[in-house]
């Protein structure tokens, strides 16, 4: 097996372009998962069963079924079965991102829940005693204390989602791995393309991990 440097330089721009799709899907998908997970968590804490129960169901259902199955349903089933709403699922990229976002919302929701449960009950009561509104209590008291400790867990899911993006290949999104496969099979030379893919994933994952550690340090609660 010989490493072909000429080929490496030749295919690198194409792979880099495809990589942008992967990174974009991750960033958009994860941003949505961060918001979606938080919304789900807050709904799950609602005292009204009619709100908390569906939210709980969504989380449990999504967590317990494979991402690939969800992707297929979004892309192949919904546009046919519910044409009115299914219109948005005609773009493979948008569908893929939405599916990733939903899937990971259910995971981040669990993480948020752990973080929020760890905030002492007294903090809620202290906020109530100061006549603070519900929204203000969330934004000023609860979340600033709940989120810093769960950053590592959220970071893990960011990296996990990043590594799950190749699944989008199943619904025809041309992301990094698909591109590498196409390049490889066109020339019957797979090593270079797949190696570059691995290295790119490795670099970005390591960078993300480093960034998350930095964020942990910025947001850590002061102590002695």
């Amino acid at each position, binding site marked *: 097996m010989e490493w072909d440097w000429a080929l490496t330089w030749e295919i690198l721009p194409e792979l880099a372009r495809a990589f942008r799709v992967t990174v974009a899907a991750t960033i958009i998908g994860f941003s949505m998962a961060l918001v979606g997970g938080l919304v789900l968590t807050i709904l799950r804490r609602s005292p009204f069963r009619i709100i908390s129960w569906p939210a709980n169901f969504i989380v449990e259902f999504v967590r317990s079924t494979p991402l690939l199955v969800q992707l297929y349903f979004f892309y192949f089933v919904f546009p046919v079965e519910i044409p009115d709403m299914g219109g948005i699922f005609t773009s493979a990229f948008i569908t893929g991102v939405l599916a990733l976002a939903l899937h990971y919302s259910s995971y981040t929701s669990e993480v948020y829940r752990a973080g929020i449960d760890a905030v*002492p009950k*007294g*903090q809620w009561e202290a906020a109530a*005693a100061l*006549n*603070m509104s519900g929204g203000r209590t969330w934004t*000023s008291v609860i979340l600033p204390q709940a989120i810093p400790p769960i950053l590592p867990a959220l970071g893990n899911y960011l990296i996990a989602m990043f590594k799950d993006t190749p699944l989008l290949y199943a619904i025809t999104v041309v992301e990094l791995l698909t591109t590498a496969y196409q390049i490889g099979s066109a020339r019957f030379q797979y090593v270079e393309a797949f190696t570059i893919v691995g290295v790119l994933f490795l670099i970005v994952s390591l960078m993300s991990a480093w960034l998350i550690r930095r964020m942990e340090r910025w947001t850590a*609660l002061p102590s002695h």
Partner: protein
Amino acid sequence: MSIEVRSIRKTFGKYTALDNVSLTVEDGCLTALLGPSGSGKTTLLRVIAGLEQADAGSGPILFHQEDVAKTSVGERRVGFVFQHYALFRHMTVFDNVAFGLKVRPRKVRPSREEIREKVHAMLSLVQLEYLSGRYPAQLSGGQRQRVALARALVIEPRVLLLDEPFGALDAKVRRDLRRWLRRLHDEIHLTSIFVTHDQEEALEVADRVVIMDKGRIVQEGSPDEVYDNPKNPFVYEFLGNVNLFHSRVEKGMAHFHGLRVESPQHETAKGEGGRAYVRPQDFEISREPLGESSFQATVQHIYRLGATVRLELAREGEYLTIEVELTNDEFRARGISKGDKVYLRPRRVRVFTDQEMDDSYTSSQL
């Protein structure tokens, strides 16, 4: 602002935390809710604050004759100091105190300048101005407690409620801080209720002491009243150490250890069994017999507690320990050492007949 609650009931599942409790707190009064754990004192405080809802069918909660039972904790404008302070850990001391003002709706919110002034005034009241930039984790327990107090007071509450305010502090800080709270109360005259399980704290600091047991109020009154005239054996035993002697009560006299002690409230007793209580500091001790109202005992242990000395004695042939407390001077003047045979004469005795014991037991059970 006076506080009045009537017929409050609170149950948690099958457990009755408050059993038909009524209480009136006069305007400007510092009241202690005193009781063992599980007596319902914290629940009562939380119901008054609005952190807990009383059961349906309970009476009103009146702040200055106005029923606030249906309002939320914020609307009641109470300053609440939590047992573990519940300071906002991600905010500085200044921000913690300022927060209650900053979150007010725009119309009633003071300007930024005013907030700063108020917070600094409050921090200087609790003597913490120099720490305004620190975070709670960087403070000692006593300092945190004072921040919590400043945070509760800055919103100009109508009443101040404190849940075991000194519970988590060490003995010295505890004493300093409770005296400081007393002085602060004398300065600002805010109607205040604090919960404690420490009888010394309640007796020293409060204007009025409300003693609770098993979800009911057992006795209330000034510290002197409750200490000198405990209504039942529970209160007697709870308010400090006691010696208990089984006795026979007849015609206004209690008999135990060959002693005859007057018990005027049992004028009509006809030889009933009973218990005589004597506090350790209510004994006279001597090497010579002290008339017919003394008995002999042997000194078994001597504990020196700084300003006072505690003796453990036992009568001949009995293993029941009698505790006696003396001042250091008295102790030295008597020249007592371990193994000495001495005479004890109770100066003050409180007698409860078995019937009364049963009554107090059932009344606090119901």
